[in-house]
């Protein structure tokens, strides 16, 4: 690769694989905020995570499950963003070019998430029932014939190998999409759009398959007897919704707090982001319900057990809350045209969707640990702590390059985009 932009080699590669190209960015596209924009969330995140770790010292179960829910929230968001970007490259979308860089900044997340995921290895025994050795010992009273049958797949070494493969695949795809696009800012090589498209073409099936298996390994195997073939799609649906909300929120923060990109990202773009948000709210509900309805109709105990946990001991309220506030209310709010064009309503809805996505992850993860429902303070501090670190480093990365792919061939089309 001819390097007009040199690579970052030190540990900061985790945060940004490229040297800063800030000086080459047009004035209007240069992040104007000072270091507080990334330091504040980063420090808050580290502080919250330290508090969580101290709190988790006494009850590691609570800590690890809370940490997994928060980490899954970020992982799904980053994966959703990766696929969202891939769709746009493959369809040669022009409307989205002005928000592409925000998306690209979001997806350089996998090396960091890998590092943030390492603490989970210390909690494997608490988190994953299938790691218990006595399950596989025929002479033990805990011997589990079903899990013994799944042992060829569900075992710790192979699980670790799979994690490495997934993260490697996502890192390679996101590395190419991120670095090609940033290099284009400085050195507009005419072959770059084609490279972005071809990477997207093989990146799409690769990401889709690894994402589905990752959802089985990370979340579905918390309840190792249970299985659902649509679980990967459910994981994806929540993630892409969360990614759209993150991009929207980032754009709104830059405009309304930073006073930047004022004439770049317009109401027309917010309306389209709002349409996506609306669409994926419906898609999430469609997938969640498809999973539920088939098990309801089948009525086979080994299949309904997962939902049974989530309808008893107060978890039923969480399920009802999810239905109402992850689907019905946002559906009605995002339906009219006017709400999608309003900065205030879109800000509220972005935060709403992000909170509900975490609530969804919490609903998937925590019933495995607790029979009675509730939100432990660790659940919130772990989530916000991880999100603070993630968000702070995202802002840091954003400040190092142009905030818009300034040499993208479709940029002017995107700037003048109007909904018909």
């Amino acid at each position, binding site marked *: 690769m001819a390097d007009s932009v040199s690579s970052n080699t030190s540990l900061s590669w985790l945060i940004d694989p490229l040297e800063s190209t800030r000086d080459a960015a047009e004035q209007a596209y240069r992040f104007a905020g000072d270091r507080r924009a990334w330091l504040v969330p980063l420090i808050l995140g580290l502080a919250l995570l330290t508090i969580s770790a101290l709190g988790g010292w006494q009850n590691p179960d609570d800590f690890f499950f809370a940490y997994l829910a928060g980490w899954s929230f970020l992982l799904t968001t980053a994966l959703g963003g990766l696929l969202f970007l891939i769709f746009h490259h493959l369809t040669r979308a022009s409307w989205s070019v002005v928000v592409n860089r925000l998306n690209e900044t979001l997806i350089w997340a996998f090396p960091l998430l890998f590092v943030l995921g390492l603490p989970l290895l210390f909690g494997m025994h608490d988190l994953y029932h299938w790691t218990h050795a006595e399950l596989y010992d025929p002479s033990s009273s805990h011997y589990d014939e079903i899990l013994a049958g799944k042992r060829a797949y569900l075992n710790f070494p192979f699980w670790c190998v799979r994690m490495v493969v997934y993260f490697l695949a996502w890192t390679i795809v996101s590395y190419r999409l991120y670095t090609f696009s940033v290099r284009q800012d400085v050195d507009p090589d005419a072959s770059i759009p084609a490279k972005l498209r071809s990477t997207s073409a093989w990146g799409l099936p690769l990401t889709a398959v690894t994402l589905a298996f990752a959802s089985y390994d990370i979340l579905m195997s918390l309840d190792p007897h249970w299985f659902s073939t649509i679980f990967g799609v459910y994981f994806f649906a929540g993630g892409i919704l969360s990614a759209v909300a993150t991009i929207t929120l980032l754009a709104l923060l830059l405009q309304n707090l930073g006073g930047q990109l004022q004439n770049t990202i317009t109401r027309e773009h917010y309306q389209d982001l709002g349409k996506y948000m609306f669409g994926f709210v419906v898609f999430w509900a469609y997938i969640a*319900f498809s999973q*539920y*309805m088939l098990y*309801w*109709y089948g*009525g086979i105990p080994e299949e309904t057990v997962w939902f049974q946990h989530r309808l008893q001991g107060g978890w039923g309220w969480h399920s009802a809350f999810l239905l109402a506030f992850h689907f019905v209310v946002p559906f009605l709010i995002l*339906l*009219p*045209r006017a709400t999608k064009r309003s900065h205030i309503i879109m800000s509220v809805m972005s935060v709403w969707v992000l909170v509900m996505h975490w609530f969804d992850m919490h609903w998937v993860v925590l019933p495995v640990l607790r029979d009675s429902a509730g939100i432990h303070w660790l659940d919130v501090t772990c989530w916000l702590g991880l999100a603070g670190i993630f968000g702070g480093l995202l802002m840091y990365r954003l400040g190092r390059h142009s905030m818009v792919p300034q040499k993208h061939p479709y940029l002017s089309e995107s700037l003048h985009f109007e909904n*018909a």
Partner: protein
Amino acid sequence: MLDNLIREGKATMGIYESDADQVYGLLAEFPNPGALLHAAEAVREEGYRHFDTHSPFPIHGMDDAMGLGNSKVGYFAFLGGVTGCAGAYLLQWWTAAVDYPINISGKPFFAVEPSVPIMFELTVLFAAFGAVAGMLALNGLPRPYNPLFYSDRFEGASDDRFFLHIAASDEQFDSEETAAMLRRIGAQHIELVQDDGVSDP
């Protein structure tokens, strides 16, 4: 009062009434889409409300130029959707639990869970019906008779010509002054269309 409301309502659907002398309005031809767009803007700024434009293809920005505002079709689609959703619920509850209850492998006679797909389908179907019916109604369609058809040149509206029609029912309409205004804003060919079929070029 009521007559007036009905007249204004029909005017928003593009259906205008002729005046006492059977004059339906003035039909002005413009050379290209851009000229028509600017003419629509100018006519609206002159204060006319009962006017319409006709072109062989949609012209980007024409809604704004004519001051039409947002389409109201969405409300019809929403009402259709709500009707479909409620209708599907009632249909399944009444047929399965009231009119002809049959025990099928111990399932409840009626439950929301398996009814959702039908509710979803009928929501979509009725929303589409609402959208199509609403679109036709708001456009005043189907409308086999329109006095503009008496104009020979108007046939070109579906081919290569761009027309603006100011209706005689507009409060500001005056065949002399309005024609002069149209000429001033660049109309190439102006004719007075009458509801009894007499066209006056």
